[in-house]
């Protein structure tokens, strides 16, 4: 009984801490984002990368490029789903390289993976290569593709699926400390 109570209080506290960080993030984000549409997906145009980085000034984050046509991307989404309580609107950005025509499908995939609270974008340009070029002139478009931004926004590119361990490692290094053991 005592143990159960402990567990319960741990999870409540964890939720509170996360909820708090979400509220804070939501308020800092909303003041900066210019999107007025209440869609899950924001159109990613040639100026969007500057907006994404400006919104996260001084913060480390992961930017992930994915597509519904890419099976490993969908597997990777499962990793994000598994760790979703540690992801906030600030520390991760998802960008779908699919066409705007597929918005409904993509939103459904995000909902299915319970990732609807993540900051999500979708490619929006008649020349998708322009967006690839803006993101990284050396990126061939292979997916999934991730960029690990440090607090000074120096970044490291990664091609291929991220493992849950890699993500967990990054999160332990960069997230606000959520150490369940100290709760007692």
């Amino acid at each position, binding site marked *: 009984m005592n143990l159960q109570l402990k567990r319960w209080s741990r999870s409540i506290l964890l939720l509170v801490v996360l*909820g708090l960080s979400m509220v804070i993030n939501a308020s800092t984000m909303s003041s900066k984002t210019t999107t007025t549409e209440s*869609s*899950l997906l924001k159109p990613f145009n040639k100026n969007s990368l500057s907006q994404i980085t400006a919104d996260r000034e001084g913060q480390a984050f992961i930017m992930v490029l994915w597509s519904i046509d890419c099976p490993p991307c969908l597997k990777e989404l499962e990793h994000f789903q598994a760790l979703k309580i540690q992801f906030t609107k600030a520390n991760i950005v998802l960008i779908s390289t699919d066409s*705007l025509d597929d918005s409904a499908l993509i939103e459904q995939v995000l909902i299915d993976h319970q990732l*609807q609270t993540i900051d999500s974008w979708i490619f929006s340009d008649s020349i998708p290569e322009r967006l690839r070029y803006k993101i990284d002139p050396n990126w061939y478009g292979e997916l999934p593709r991730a960029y690990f931004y440090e607090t000074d926004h120096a970044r490291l590119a990664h091609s291929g699926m991220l493992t849950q361990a890699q993500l967990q490692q990054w999160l332990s290094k960069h997230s606000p400390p959520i150490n369940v053991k100290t709760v007692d």
Partner: protein
Amino acid sequence: MNKYVLILFTAALFSLENSAAMNMKGGLSGGHSGSQNSLVPACLDAKALPSPHCGRVPTAVYRQTAKSNGALNGLLYVVFSQNSHIYLATSTDQGTTYNAPVAINRTPEQMYDDGENRPKIVLGNNQEVYVSWTHKTNGRYSGDVRFARSLDAGLTFEAPITINSDRALISHRFDAMKLDGQGHLYIVWIDKRDKAKAESLEKAYDGSSLYYVVSKDSGASFLPNSKRVDNSCECCRIAIDTDNKGNVMTLWRQVYPGNIRDHAIAYLDPKANLNTSSATENSALERATPMRATNDQWQIEGCPHHGPDLSIDNENIAHMAWFTQGEAHKGLMYGQFDLSQNKIGLTSSIDQSASASRPQVYVHEKAVYLMWKRFEGESMALLLRRSNDGGKTWLADETIATTLNGSDHPDWLWDGEKLFATWHTQSEGFQIIPLASSLQAEP
């Protein structure tokens, strides 16, 4: 303390609920359409007639009919998709003006009309016009291969038929079509029936398979569906051409063990053009095995949606262009495969830049042409490179067109004497670009 916790908890929940509600609304309004629709002013008029400029993925062939006073006389045929129809438009002035288009499928149907999966047109030896395309059926990645023919040079078409005998709502897509030296018509496509069967038995199956049909009566009827190969890549177009004896050859991305997605080349119909002597049975057996045509060692889980191109010369050298991100090669590649000796020949890089895509190859005698797209910071350029010595050495690249908006895959148009590039762009419409005389094959 507990009270404080509860308040925060509720605030967090409210914030979540609120954003979920907003998201739902967004989901309903999501799904913009027509992001790649034509921007040509004439096409913005709602009453504009279907045309190769306004439609999607126009694909052209040319029939040379006669020569008078040294001038070329012939008819340009362009198939394209618009408003759930495949249309055929013809032109007697090489695309300056078009006759009123003919709707090939009179009943509208959903269809795939992207650069990689587009309608195909082949002209018969008389007045036949053969057209194939992929009908989009219910379900993601599902489709049926469709075929229609005209026996009066494209004035009228018979009702379309479905080519794949398997009618499950799965993928039968990426059709490719070619006439062989005997006038037999071949259609090959990527088919997921074997994968579906394997999955129903809970067995692993890499990729899809290639199926084909042949018609020996000018498209009036087709022999039963035949499987050509297992484990093809799922969504890269199939390249097709005839060898120097008129046999249909195909080049496609294959899933080799370990998810290596390099290319294979094969006779589409191992028994075609062979008589029944025992010596030829061996040949048929030999021909049945697909050959590894590229060795890039590209291991990738998933389909890159970037298929190869193929053009075979008089000496039976297959000239190939493709995209890879393999261990051995990266970017756009050009390569040769010697069909007489069954071995890979010259291999060289076309363009390693990350913004280069959609390579095309065309060979005429000793002249080899390469064409591809490259995004150059602001605009998309169409580049051309030529070799006069069968691909050993290359002249300097030339930019033959640029565009500021969306663009289709480029393609070739051979009018019997000269080579043209064709390119459909959102801003400019369907362009038939003559190659400078310096780039034409020497007489």
